[in-house]
């Protein structure tokens, strides 16, 4: 990732934060607004970051994954269901329930990863079709089970949505979170913190370990990997499953960290924006994270502007329409994918099944 790209990212974030600062100036000090914007940005970037990391694992190993959206949606549902099941039926306390929910979400992601690997590596199904299957399947399963389990009178929950065990509590990071003013930015929930740690870990794994070298070789030139004794099929399976687990963690963000409830289709295209972040970040973890922050800042704009709606100047009246602001992330996605900030390069064997 080049500096031009990071510069562009910084510029967009500054502009978006600037808009909120200007609008909210009569209500709050710029300091407060900036901190609030950055805190929200980092939080809402979480599913995008994790989705992009999932994509990086899959595509660096040579498997295109457009099923991130579905993987996250299914994980969001099963994570939430797991937490409620532990809490309501098994009468477990709140924290263990949430942790079991988290585990369920990660496993769901991993299973969907296994399915995707099975379709695209073993059966060599067109990977775009395979990803679409994952997306449709996740929509269907989560929507259907949501209705059957919570809105049918004969179900284990007696036809009503039980009280969820809440969301994962914030983790107070010592030192960083105690800093004056900016400390609040570091006061985040566990999945958000895990996402940032994973960015560093995935970068290390990909570029400094044997696993990473072999993964990338399999995504660039699988035959070369094969001739030096690397099992292409096994590497691809493993990486797609790992990617699925990370997407599962991203799915958990929606129902265990952001809000304590599930709604059908609640991932709302985030899996695809994550894919865009991966591409804009040139298939590298830090690049993808930076791109995720741009999209996150666009969502933060929407969230933060709501408080200052009444103060939006008359000549900017269009900003009062929430759907106008809500469009920003999607417009940014399109803009970025047009390649105005230069081209990125996918792994050479990305999407190509390996034939012996």
């Amino acid at each position, binding site marked *: 990732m080049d500096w031009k790209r990071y510069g562009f990212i910084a510029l967009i974030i500054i502009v978006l934060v600037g808009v909120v600062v200007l609008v909210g100036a009569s209500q709050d000090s710029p300091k407060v607004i900036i901190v609030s914007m950055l805190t929200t940005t980092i939080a809402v970037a979480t599913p995008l970051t994790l989705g992009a990391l999932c994509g990086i694992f899959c595509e660096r190993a040579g498997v295109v994954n457009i099923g991130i959206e579905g993987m996250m949606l299914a994980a969001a549902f099963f994570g939430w269901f797991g937490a409620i099941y532990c809490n309501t039926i098994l009468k477990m306390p709140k924290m263990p329930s949430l942790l079991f929910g988290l585990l369920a979400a990660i496993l769901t992601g991993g299973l969907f990863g296994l399915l995707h690997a099975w379709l695209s590596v073993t059966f060599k199904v067109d990977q775009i079709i395979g990803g679409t299957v994952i997306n449709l399947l996740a929509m269907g399963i989560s929507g259907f089970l949501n209705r059957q389990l919570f809105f049918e009178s004969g179900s284990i929950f007696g036809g009503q949505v039980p009280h969820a065990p809440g969301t994962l509590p914030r983790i107070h990071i010592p030192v960083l979170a105690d800093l004056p003013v900016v400390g609040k930015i570091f006061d985040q929930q566990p999945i958000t913190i895990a996402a940032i740690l994973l960015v560093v870990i995935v970068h290390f794994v990909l570029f*400094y*370990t044997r696993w990473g070298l072999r993964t990338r070789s399999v995504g660039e030139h699988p035959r070369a990997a094969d001739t030096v004794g690397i099992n292409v099929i096994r590497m691809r399976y493993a990486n797609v499953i790992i990617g699925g687990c990370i997407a599962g963690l991203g799915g958990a963000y929606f129902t265990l960290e952001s809000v304590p409830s599930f709604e059908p289709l609640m991932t709302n295209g985030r899996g695809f924006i994550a894919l865009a972040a991966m591409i804009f970040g040139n298939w590298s973890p830090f690049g993808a994270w930076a791109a995720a922050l741009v999209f996150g800042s666009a969502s933060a704009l929407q969230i933060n502007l709501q408080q200052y709606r009444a103060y939006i100047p008359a000549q900017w009246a269009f900003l009062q329409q929430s759907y106008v602001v809500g469009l920003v992330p999607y417009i940014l996605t399109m803009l970025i994918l047009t390649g105005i900030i230069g081209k990125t390069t996918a792994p050479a064997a990305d999407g190509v099944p390996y034939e012996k």
Partner: protein
Amino acid sequence: MATVLELKGITKKFPGVLANDNVNFDLQSGEIHALLGENGAGKTTLMNVLYGLYRPDQGEIFRNGQPIAMHSPKDAITHGIGMVHQHFMLVPVFTVTENIMLGAETIKNGILARREVSGQIRELSRQYGLDIDPDTFVRDLPVGIQQRVEIVKTLYRKADILILDEPTAVLTPQEADDLFRIMRELTSKGVSIIFITHKLKEVLAIADRITVMRAGRVAGTTTPAETDEHRLAAMMVGREVILNVEKKPAEPGEEMLQVRQLHVADQRGLETVRGITFSVREGEILGIAGVQGNGQTELVEALTGLCRTRGGQVFLNGHDVTGKSPRPVIETGMAHIPEDRQRHGLVLSYPVADNLILCTYYLPPFGVNGVLHNRAVDENAGKLVQAYDIRTPSAYTVVSKLSGGNQQKVIVARELSRSVHLLIANQPTRGLDVGSIEYIHRQIVDMRDRGVAVLLVSAELDEIMSLADRIAVIYRGQIVAVVDADKVSRAELGLMMAGSAQKSEAVPAA
């Protein structure tokens, strides 16, 4: 000398084909043993058996006298056998170090020990006079150096038996000489080399022993001292072969193709043809010599209307055909034998008969009022199959079932049976056996003698030198020299192909 490797009675069957039939082969310590044969003779199958990619149906492999079992390339590596594949097994976006350590990584504290390995590579490189920098990215290296990286890759794995599969196919003559020097260096240090090729000159120049394969069997083993090109060719093909094309002096007429300041970009938008000017006369063969990837593909595509030009003009028989689509160019009298016969020359799933009318199907007698006249198509096919000696079960056989040589004959028949003024032949004999090459060369010379202008593009220097009347050398998208074929040596051409010619020295284009 000790026998380091012995293959005994190797037999390998594929459905319908006996690829290796009781093949015996042995390798002495420190020798270069050439394995010579046409495509499909079974060289590659034999080496894949040796490298653990195929399991033989019968036969045994002995390493230093001990029988060994080969189940995968891993086993081959364990037994000290390394292979440099024809298509390099290198990851372009990895550094030399990363490519060499891949699959045999050195790890320190869980981290790839890049610096340590790159030191070892430097040492190996110095030891064998290979001169490679371990820290550069493979994509930035010329092909010749990439090949050395492949060699180091095997040495790093402690291989002392090296299989080189058609190693000179991608090299300039100078790079090939470098490779031969390196091969000598390696054998002097105890490495034994199996050198797979179909080029007779190289075999005679470098090999200690030569084993010739034909139709899955060993046709004989000999040494360069006991044989010559003609005898080797006869062993390969099983009959006498005319190696040098017999042709009378050219009688050039009017300029048929004129190309002026042509600029063409490739698919990525990079300009690969950068201001080329030349002309081809009636009754002469102009050869375009150059290492692959110097703009030949784009030049031919632009001339034949397959891709757009960025600038310049092309005149065919006095008509401006710049930027025209293929059909008007063909109708102006151009025949084209494309570089990739399977992708651009044929519809593989069509029968021979239909492939023979691809340029003319819409014209009478084949197409009348938009309806195909099958009887005319059949008659045409019957006539051409006989005239051009296309070996096919019938004219209705799907063309993908034919051998490469016969597929090429289908294209030649289609293109040359029309009345044409210009023939553009791009790599017309690539991958063909000696017999087919002989036939195609004869056809090209016959076209010239009938007054057709021929533009021959080839990466094979021998082909260019034996066929062309004049030779234009292309380097990085420009013609660096145009010379008369009988006034230039192989070495001079090789140097020009490597870009060393000064424009001022070049004979101006006629």
